[in-house]
């Protein structure tokens, strides 16, 4: 898959909730190639950060060239991104990652927690009516459901505190979801423990599972070896940025 470096004009940059922002920028080459699961490596040029920052692609419009990301305010880099305005230019490198989500036919369950839900939106759009499980700490986090509504057949919600949907972690909702829907495969993106528990539960239910990994990255293109891990399946070493970020769960856990 071809990668590009684009000076992208920001089309929109707004807070969805106080700590989670949505940015849309014009990067037609990236938009034309992007597949669900891939990410972009972003940088405000002349800013405070040295390295680029990776974010999953939430949407890519091949016609308008608009690429969307959703990012959580974490530290220096995301802080300076929130200060950017429409019309300003941000450097975008992408689409990155050869390991993308499966978009083959079949009924998919997408499970995500926090900003891990971001790349699943793009996946949902490319699938035929997937089932979605949105896991959040509290109700405020469940604004995510509205992103999935246009594409999902059914949306389940869990919150840690029970303030919305099912009380508990994502994995607690799985038995019911599997019982109520003919799920062929599961695609997960979120905290490691969520991915691991979902992977194990899926395995136990005999359903294939793929996970989107997150590791600290320096290059994002497979040259620094900052993000590698050893496959649990083959012992082979993979680069999260180049061979992933999406892997069969069995390689990871």
């Amino acid at each position, binding site marked *: 898959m071809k990668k590009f470096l684009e000076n992208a004009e920001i089309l929109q940059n707004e807070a969805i909730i106080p700590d989670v922002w949505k940015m849309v920028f014009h990067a037609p080459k990236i938009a034309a190639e992007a597949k669900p699961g891939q990410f972009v490596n972003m940088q405000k040029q002349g800013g405070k950060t*040295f390295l680029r920052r990776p974010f999953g692609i939430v949407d890519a419009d091949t016609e308008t060239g608009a690429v969307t990301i959703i990012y959580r305010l974490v530290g220096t880099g995301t802080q300076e991104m929130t200060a950017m305005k429409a019309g300003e230019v941000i450097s975008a490198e992408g689409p990155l990652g050869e390991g993308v989500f499966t978009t083959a036919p079949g009924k998919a369950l997408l499970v995500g927690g926090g900003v891990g839900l971001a790349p699943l939106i793009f996946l949902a759009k490319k699938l035929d009516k997937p089932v979605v499980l949105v896991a959040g700490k509290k109700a405020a986090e469940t604004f995510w459901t509205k992103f999935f509504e246009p594409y999902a057949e059914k949306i389940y919600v869990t919150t840690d505190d029970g303030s919305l949907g099912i009380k508990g972690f994502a994995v607690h909702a799985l038995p019911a979801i599997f019982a109520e829907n003919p799920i062929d495969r599961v695609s997960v993106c979120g905290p490691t423990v969520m991915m691991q528990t979902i992977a194990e539960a899926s395995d136990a239910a005999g359903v294939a599972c793929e996970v989107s990994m997150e590791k600290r990255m320096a290059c994002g293109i497979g040259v*620094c070896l900052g993000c*590698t891990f050893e496959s649990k399946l083959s012992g082979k*070493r993979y680069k999260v940025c180049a061979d992933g970020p999406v892997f069969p769960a069995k390689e990871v856990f």
Partner: protein
Amino acid sequence: MNKERIAVNFAGISMKTPVMGASGTFGFGLEYADFLDIDNIGAIISKGITPLPRPGNPGVRVAETPAGMLNCIGLENPGVDAFKRDILPEVSRHSTPLIVNISAGTAEEYGELAAKLDVDGVAALEVNISCPNVKEGGIVFGTDPKAAASVARSVKDHTSKPVIMKLSPNVTDITVMAKAVEDAGADAVSLINTLTGMAIDIYTQKPLLGNITGGLSGPAVKPVALRMVWQVANAVKIPVLGLGGIASWQDAVEFMLAGASAVAVGAYNFVNPCAVEEIAEGMDAYCEKMGISHISEIIGKIND
């Protein structure tokens, strides 16, 4: 662009430009094919290759720092055999010289590794005696002139290729190291490798990196690298490959004015994957503007 004006010969290797991709930051070159014309750069310096495959260090391996980064990759690589079998043939299709960066545990092993790499497609060896992120060997070879010389000699004895010794900045007097490897027969030196540094997570109250310490690189270290290149260029007769924090053609010109015969870009490739090519273009434009007929005229010019 005036291609003749910036073509150089470094330690016997013909290069289209004086700007190479530094070891560990440039993969095997091919990874950059979408961003630049890999047949239009000075050289590809490979990730460090060791006798056997290495998984590298566990835990977090990279961290950002002010104007730079720390890494403790720990020489993850597929080992020399897999390198020769799987990677070398691919890279050899390109006209750009491939310099293979090597590391080993003893002087003898360095020699054996060099012998295995004395094959077509390898333009030169860059001998890493300065990796701060591995336990065996690395630090002694990089800080003890006798040990460094013994590695240089062993490699020279086992290869027909030019041998570039890569020096560590974590020493009191880098000219002592440079002279030791020059006397041992090295064809060139490259410097600097990374400065040993550290970062701490104040909330977990633990080191941020899996290896506790890591190597600092990027623009932050440029003033130190430039000083060392200047010192070494004035202390030895063999050519110097200058690197450490280069992020613009201006930086590259500074290194050549200080005495480097060629330069390499390291961590900045992660920021701008087109850097190796763009910096060469900027150097050419500088020649044009300054009325310099060949880039090599500026080597060591600040001493005039």
